[in-house]
């Protein structure tokens, strides 16, 4: 399955909080690892990231955590 360029994929999501941004940064790396798996489904992964990001943005409000 052909994957869209990471940069394109990444810019489709707009985190609203620091926790969301940290999570998305993590996903950038995580995606590279996950897509080594032959069964990796890029569309499903993007949906999962989008879904989790929306939840994180909702929960973490606008201010950032310490995030050590």
């Amino acid at each position: 399955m052909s994957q869209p360029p990471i940069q394109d994929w990444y810019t489709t999501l707009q985190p609203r909080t620091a926790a969301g941004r940290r999570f998305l940064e993590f996903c950038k790396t995580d995606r590279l690892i996950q897509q080594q798996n032959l069964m990796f489904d890029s569309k499903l992964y993007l949906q999962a990231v989008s879904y989790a990001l929306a939840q994180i943005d909702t929960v973490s409000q606008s201010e950032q955590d310490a995030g050590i």
Partner: protein
Amino acid sequence: MIVQALQAQNFRQFLHLNIQLIPANGVILLVGGNETGKSAIGEAIVFALFGLSDRVGAKTLHQLIRWGQEEAIVQLAFQINDKALLIERTISTAGQMSVVLWDRSTGQVIADAIQQVQTVLQNLLGYGHKVFNQTFYWSQRLTKSSTADLEAIQAMAGVQVYQQVHDLIENDTRTALSKSEQLEKTLQEQAAQLKQRKVDPLRLKWLQETQAELSNSQEQHYALAEQIGEETQHYERRYPLYHQIKRQVSSLHWGAGLLLLLMLILLGGSLSSGFTLWVESLWTGASKLMIWIALLLGISAAVAVFFAYRLANEEMTPLRSKVGLLAQRLYTGYRMMSVSLHELLHPATADWLREKQIAPESADMLMDMQSLAKWSNRVENYAIEPTDLRHLADGLVVNLQQRQQMTAGLLSRANEDIYREQTKAQEAQAIQQQQLERQTVLGAAQTQLQVQIMAQGLLNRAHHQAAVRFNGAINHSTRAYIEAMTGGEYQGVELADDLQLYVIQESNQSRTPFKTLKAEVQREIAMALRLSLAKALALRHGTNQHSLFWDEALLSFTEPLLSQALAHLNTLAHQSTTQLWVSLPQIPENGKDLVLLDCRPDDNVLDIRPIRLGTA
């Protein structure tokens, strides 16, 4: 960031607050009874830096103004690395806030707008109000919370959000799973319903053919009964006419025969020589006259035969032909009524009659063909008296009508069967449509479930990464703080992948879940972690100076642990350039080398200088 001096006017209960010469390192004890303003000092620091308060909301900050005054002013002198700064923040009763940030070394204003000051401070400190609250500032409000310690640690580690989202998604997943299961169950139920409503297209076709044949049979019986009734009436009307013509024909035949006889006699006489001589003797030329008369008689006979033929051919034959139709219908009616409906109809339709458990008509209810045979030829010759024929026809018509009514009843049942089959087919179609819709919904729910499961995996991995980072950031510096705070009982903490925080006890090599510890031990560990994390945060931003404010955080500590902990903390704070404000209701038993700020306001004025305990 190190606090160097604090001044305030009309802030909370203070008419005037002035604390100067605050030491940069070590424990600073704020000691005083209730309502002496210990908490207000911490609040003043938070308000000066961030324009917020942990006690009142952002929209009710005017509540920080001393009762009856127009505005409150707080000035905070502080240092970040080698930068000496002064911030002054004012709040009016109308909620108007102003703020100015100066560089104390040059006396120049760095920023004088709220947003601008916030941005500059964020850059200088490396964190905002929330992080300050989570790490550097322990509000008295948290002292009363049972979950504050674990939540605070999770927030510090940046995993609180993962924990909350994990719970949310788990809830969503449960809902989606339940929805999927419900849908699958409904689909199974519908499949069973569909099985019950399984439509056999051949059966419907068979029923429709049965319906058509019954309808045809009903019409046939009805039409035949009507036609026989009408034809019988015609028979009754034609009967006298036919017999009148018949008599005329017969008379003509008789007349012709008589004429022929006379002609033969005359011809016979004219051929006899004796008779001819005798007649000629009477009247000369009589023999010739006889021949002429004989010819005339012959011609008359021929004319009579001709008329008789014409009457028979043109009048009687059509009448016979018409009655022939009646005879044929009578024959058909008898033939139809001489066998049961089961035999009369197509075998497939008879199967339906058997399915409906309709018994064949008994033999005594059927017509006898032999009785018709006696009548058949006679009908065609108008040889039956009209009353006799009426009797015969009426009997047949009654039977045909009964059969027609019976067929109408059967037709109605066949229609019901067809309606049932069609309804079943429509219901099956509706169920199939619902199944399709539900399958679409199920597909979407299952995809959502996959998304949620994958999101959980992602969050677990993100949490793991945060946990690794957290464990790495605190482990090298936490041990001393934990030992100091727990009297050496515990040595470390570890944030595990299961989102649990474990406390490490080296003496028995155990890992104890944080939340199972006693509340006071949780507090000890939480405060140790705050020290460790504050240091890590400060270091991350290029400074080893930082200031923490603990408002009654050690209220649960009893002696001698309190004195021991404070002594250890003081040593560690000096080593790591930490300024640790600790508010307590009274001076600990052994406060040697600690710095004391004695909170005993005089008429709401607190103007104090630090005193080093044990050295006076």
